[in-house]
C-alpha cells in the first residue's frame, strides 16, 4: 500500500483525513519504518493531529504541529521544522492537510521539495458528506485541491461511513461511486478505510476489500 516516502492526505473537511493520517502513520511505525507526521491544518483549530501528539510520540512517531495548534489562538503558521523532513531521506512522512482547497493551499509552499522526493497525494472521500455525495462534486473537490496545492492527486481513498451506524452496503455503495470517479479521471483507488466494531468485523472487511486500512479510533469527543 505504501511506496512513496511522502504521503499526503487531502480531502473535504470532515472527510476523515486526520483519523486516516494518524492511523497510516501508526501503521508505518508498526512496519518498523522511521516515521513523521505533520499537522498541516491551517483551517480548523478543532479535532486535529495535534490532539493526539503525545499518543503518537509514545508510539515512536515524530510529530510536527504548528506552534499554536490546540491553543486559544488560530495562527496558521507553518513551523520551519517541516523543511528538515525533506532532507532526511530515511524518513517516511505523512502530511495531514487542512480541508478543501483552502487547506490544500499550504502544500503549495513545499511543492518543489515534495515533487523532488516523490509523493502520493491521497484524496479522502466520504460519500455521506454533503459536498462529496455525487461524482460531479467529488471531481470538483479533487480539481480544486490539485489547483490549490499545485500537486497532482495520485490515489483516492474511500472513507464512506456513518460513524457507529456504518453498514457494509453503504461502504460498497461509496466504493462504487469512488470507482466511478476513478475511472472518469484516471486516478486509482488507493484503499478503503474502515473502523471495525470488533475482530470478526475486521476479518469480514479484509475479505471483501483487497486494499483496506483498518482504523483505530484516535480522535475522540470529550465524552468518548
Amino acid at each position, binding site marked *: 500500500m505504501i511506496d512513496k516516502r511522502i504521503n499526503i492526505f487531502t480531502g473535504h473537511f470532515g472527510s476523515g483525513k486526520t483519523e486516516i493520517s494518524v492511523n497510516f502513520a501508526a501503521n508505518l511505525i508498526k512496519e518498523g519504518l522511521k516515521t513523521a507526521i505533520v499537522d498541516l491544518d491551517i483551517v*480548523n483549530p478543532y479535532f486535529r493531529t495535534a490532539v493526539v501528539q503525545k499518543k503518537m510520540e509514545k508510539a515512536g512517531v515524530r510529530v510536527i504541529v504548528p506552534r499554536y495548534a490546540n491553543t486559544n489562538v488560530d495562527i496558521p503558521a507553518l513551523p520551519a521544522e517541516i523543511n528538515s523532513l525533506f532532507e532526511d531521506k530515511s524518513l517516511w512522512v505523512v502530511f495531514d492537510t487542512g480541508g478543501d482547497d483552502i487547506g490544500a493551499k499550504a502544500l503549495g509552499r513545499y511543492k518543489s521539495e515534495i515533487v523532488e522526493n516523490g509523493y502520493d497525494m491521497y484524496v479522502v472521500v466520504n460519500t455521506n*458528506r454533503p459536498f462529496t455525495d455525487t461524482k460531479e462534486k467529488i471531481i470538483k473537490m479533487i480539481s480544486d485541491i490539485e489547483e490549490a496545492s499545485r500537486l497532482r492527486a495520485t490515489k483516492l481513498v474511500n472513507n464512506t461511513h456513518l460513524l457507529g451506524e456504518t453498514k457494509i452496503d453503504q461502504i460498497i455503495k461509496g466504493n462504487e461511486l469512488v470507482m466511478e470517479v476513478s475511472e472518469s479521471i484516471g486516478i486509482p483507488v488507493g484503499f478503503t478505510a474502515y473502523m471495525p466494531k470488533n475482530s470478526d468485523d475486521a476479518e469480514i472487511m479484509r475479505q471483501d476489500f483487497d486494499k483496506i486500512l483498518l482504523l483505530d479510533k484516535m480522535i475522540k*469527543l470529550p*465524552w468518548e
Partner: protein
Amino acid sequence: MGEKMLMKGNEAIAEAAIRAGCRFYFGYPITPQSEISHYMARKMPEVNGTFIQAESEVAAINMVYGAASAGARVLTTSSSPGISLKQEGLSYIAGAELPAVIVNIVRSGPGLGGILPAQGDYFQAVKGGGHGDYKMVVLAPASVQEAYELTVEAFNIADRYRIASMIMGDGTLGQMMEVVEFRDEEDNKVYEKPWAATGTKLLRDHNVITSIYIDPVTLEKHNLNLQAKYKKISENETRVEVYNCDDADIIVAAYGTVARIVKNVIKTAEKEGIKVGLIRPVSLWPFPEKAFQKYADVPKAFLTVEMSAGQMVEDVRLSLNGRNEVHFYGRMGGMIPAQSEILDKIREILREAK
C-alpha cells in the same frame, strides 16, 4: 425519516435553516462557527437565496432586522465576541417584535478570549445582553441531530410569537461530526405575517415596524404586552430532558455537550452504586423550572456542571428556591470538564451529605 448524512453541528444548523425555508443569511465569519457561513455561501445561490458577508456583526444583525421586517425567514450566526456586537440589534428586534433566528457557537471569553468551547454566554443569552426588558427563546442542542431539529423549531417559534430565537451551542457542538437523519419534508407551517412591511399596494394602511414609542403610557402598554407574550412562551415552549431522576442520590443539571459527558458519568457512577440523575434544560429560556421543582426533594443534593464560572446554576437555585443544596463544578478558558472530575465532585458532595 429519510436521508442520512455525516455532518458537523455547524453544517447541520445551516442545512436545517435552508430546509426551514430560510432564504436570507447575513453574517461575518468567526471561529468556531465559520462552517455555517461557508455552507450558506455555497448553498444559498443554489436555492435562490441571499448570502451576504456583512462588513461587521453590527451590520449583519441590522440586515436581519430589515429582512425580518419584510416578513422573511432570516438567519445570522456568530460566536461570542460577534454576538456581543449584535446586542443592540437584538434589543431593537425584541422591541419591534420581529421573528429571527440567531446562532451563537460559544467560545471562551471574556474579551477576545479564545477559540475553544465554553458556555460563558448563558447570562448574555437568557438575561438580556441588550438593553430593556426583553427575552429571547434560547435553545441548546446536545447533538448534531438535535441541532438540526431545534434550528427548524427555532424558525417556527420565532414566527409563531414574533420573537428572536437563539440556538446556543459550544464550539464542540459546532465542530463535532455525527450522523443526521433529515425528515423528507419539514412541517413548516406558513405563518401569515399581516404586520410585515411588504408594500400596501394602496389597499391597506402602512405597517409600521418600530421600537420607539413617544408616549410613556403607550410604551408601558407595549412592555406589558411583551411580558404577557413571554409568559405565554414560558407556558408553551419549555423544553427539557429528564433522565434517570427517580430515586437519584444526586441530580446533575447540565446543558449542551456537557450533558453528554454527564450521561457517561451516570454509567460509571452506577457501577459504584451511586445513582445520578440528569436534568438537561433544552430551552435555557424559558427555563424548565418545573422539572427542577418536581424532583426538588428526591436527591441528597443537586450539582450544576458548566463550562463557565457558574451561570445556569443561578437559575437552578431560583427554581429550587432553597428546597435543596445546589453545588457547582465548572471549567473555563476552553477547558472541558472530564468525566473523572465530575465523578470526584459527586463523590465529595455525597460524602458530605451523609
